[in-house]
């Protein structure tokens, strides 16, 4: 199957001003997302993983222009969304939808399920008004709820059921791309699995494309085709999931993978424990942002910003931003703890 570009992010930056000084001038910026580029192809699932505060959600929000991006292009089917007027953007919102983490906060508690869904259709003028109710009930069935529950309020549902309502809302305008921002993180494992399965089924049924944001590498491995690893506002590695899990190249990715406990008491493995905490995105470290915690860091890392690149040992489409991919691989460089 020919891969068709659906969304192309180029040089995206999102800086949040920090007010201070006289008369509330902007004294500094939180560089939440600092110059990232990637492409999503039709029908695939791309995940963004990384630690808290690394800019995952911000990326998703900037794509949807829930926050106006500071810089960069977001091309959806060749149209630069960042350049559209607010009004024109509204039309495109039909094609890009989002599902949120918190099943309690993501639905207006004062609306019945039916009105949540019909309102969405009303906003985007999907279907004539008299057919919307029927469609809403259909959607409920699609996400595994029962049509008779349409007139209930959100608080009458459990967390997993609410997450399904959120999915139905996103589906109601027939989108092409859905951004799932930690869509299953708040759910218990047993429910999480239900929702993950549902997302997969829907993808097949409606030819959906997902941008899946999560910090849980288990979930990410399960659902994604390709994975983006972010660290402090930058992409450190992009790869298809097999390459990433079996052949991680960036020291951060390696550390991340090794840090996750495996639910099997027999699999005791070597763990790379990183020193210290994630630095603040207000004054990110110079050079490679990971150098403060990286066991391989050299002086070069403090100065030069590594570019994303594909080393010879890597498959096509697998990129990592590290100066020493080869050296680490060959064992020439040893970690110093």
């Amino acid at each position, binding site marked *: 199957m020919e891969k068709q570009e659906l969304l192309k992010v180029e040089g995206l930056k999102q800086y949040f001003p920090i007010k201070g000084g006289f008369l509330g001038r902007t004294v500094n910026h939180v560089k939440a997302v600092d110059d990232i580029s990637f492409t999503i192809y039709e029908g695939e699932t791309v995940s963004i993983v990384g630690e808290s505060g690394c800019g995952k959600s911000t990326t998703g929000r900037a794509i949807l222009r829930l926050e106006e991006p500071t810089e960069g292009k977001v091309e959806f089917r060749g149209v630069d969304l960042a350049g559209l007027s607010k009004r024109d953007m509204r039309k495109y919102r039909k094609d890009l939808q989002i599902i949120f983490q918190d099943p309690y906060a993501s639905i207006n508690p004062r609306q019945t399920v039916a009105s949540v869904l019909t309102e969405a259709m009303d906003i985007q003028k999907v279907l004539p008004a008299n057919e919307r109710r029927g469609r809403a009930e259909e959607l409920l069935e699609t996400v595994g709820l029962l049509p008779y529950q349409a007139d209930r309020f959100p608080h009458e549902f459990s967390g997993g059921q609410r997450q399904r309502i959120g999915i139905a809302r996103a589906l109601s305008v027939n989108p092409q791309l859905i951004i799932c921002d930690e869509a299953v993180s708040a759910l*218990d*494992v047993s429910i*999480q699995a239900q929702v993950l*399965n549902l997302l997969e089924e829907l993808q097949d049924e409606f030819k959906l494309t997902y941008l899946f944001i999560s910090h849980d590498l288990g979930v*990410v491995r399960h659902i994604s085709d390709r994975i983006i690893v972010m660290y402090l506002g930058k992409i450190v590695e992009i790869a298809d999931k097999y390459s990433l899990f079996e052949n991680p190249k960036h020291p951060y990715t390696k550390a991340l993978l090794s840090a996750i*406990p*495996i*639910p099997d008491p027999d699999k005791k493995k070597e763990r790379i*424990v990183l020193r210290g905490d*994630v630095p603040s995105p207000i004054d990110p470290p110079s050079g490679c942002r990971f150098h403060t915690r990286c066991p391989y860091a050299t002086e070069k890392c403090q100065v030069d910003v590594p570019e994303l690149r594909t080393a010879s040992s890597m498959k096509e489409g697998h990129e990592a931003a590290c100066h020493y991919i080869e050296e680490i691989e060959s064992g020439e460089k040893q970690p110093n703890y």
Partner: protein
Amino acid sequence: MSIQGTEDIILEVKNLQTIFKTDTGDVRAVDGVSFKLPKGKTIGIVGESGSGKSITSLSILQLLASNGKITNGEVFYKGDDLLKLTENQMRKLRGNEISMIFQEPMTSLNPVYTVGQQISEALMLHQNMSKKDAFIRSVELLQLVGIPSPDKRVKNYPFELSGGMRQRVMIAMSLACDPEILVADEPTTALDVTIQAQILELIKELQDRLGMSVIFITHDLGVVAETCDYVAVMYAGQVVEYSDIRTLFHQPKLPYTIGLLKSLPRHDIEQDKLEPIKGNVPSPHEMPVGCRFSPRCPAATDLCRTKMPQLETDENGNQVRCWIYTDEWTGEAEVDIYGETRIAKSGGAKTVLPD
């Protein structure tokens, strides 16, 4: 592996029951929890949100909110039933012999006192240390939990520390009086994986060094697999399975535990499809009369739905609360649960676990 005989049991919880009075009636948050904690070992308590893990630990320490009440059960610690102690006697144990770390490092430290003051408090209280000695000891403790330049950090307020550091402070605080038992209630849930790895490492290391017994509460089966020797699985306020760590992960008996493991997405292996448990956790107000998992259980029979099973102990000392493994079982002899087959005990037949 067996629990019985060979090991010293430092803490034994028997049939603990805790209820909360609420506007909508009583909530049985903990309803029949029993487990044993061998000296120097770690027991994990796992379960989904709301299953009563935290309340179990708070009940042991008798730190329940004012509307909570322990209605039944015994908690033996060094031969005494903690539930029969006076508040004063209990207070002498808390923070001294049994101490606790909480889930939220952000909110569990008092924002208006320095880290040093907060660590010193327990020392001065239980060990009659002078302020100065307590301070010196605080610095040592911070060093122990791996905080860099502890002599400076000791004067910091909690807000000046990162989440990981705060959790370390909590740990330092709980270790202050060399406790016999450390209760850790989801100590890493709020932290990132890389930080979680640091903290888990730390707890393990300290346990080895100080010989504490640990009750480790979590909902993360991965963490359990890495840290615990024994596991109690909780569902809807009850312990539904209790066994050593290997048995639990390799030979889980309870359909719920099997389902839990099957629905867990893993990063270390490739899974085709997750096997979710259908339905939802029952609401505390509408508990099923029989086995509490029966509405969601793929193997449930009428017996399951009408009669509550008891925790049955097998020859290895492992326990399970399920009709399948009892003589009363009336269903199939081979039960297929989420793709795994278990031989049921019926008409006096012995449980044979397939491998």
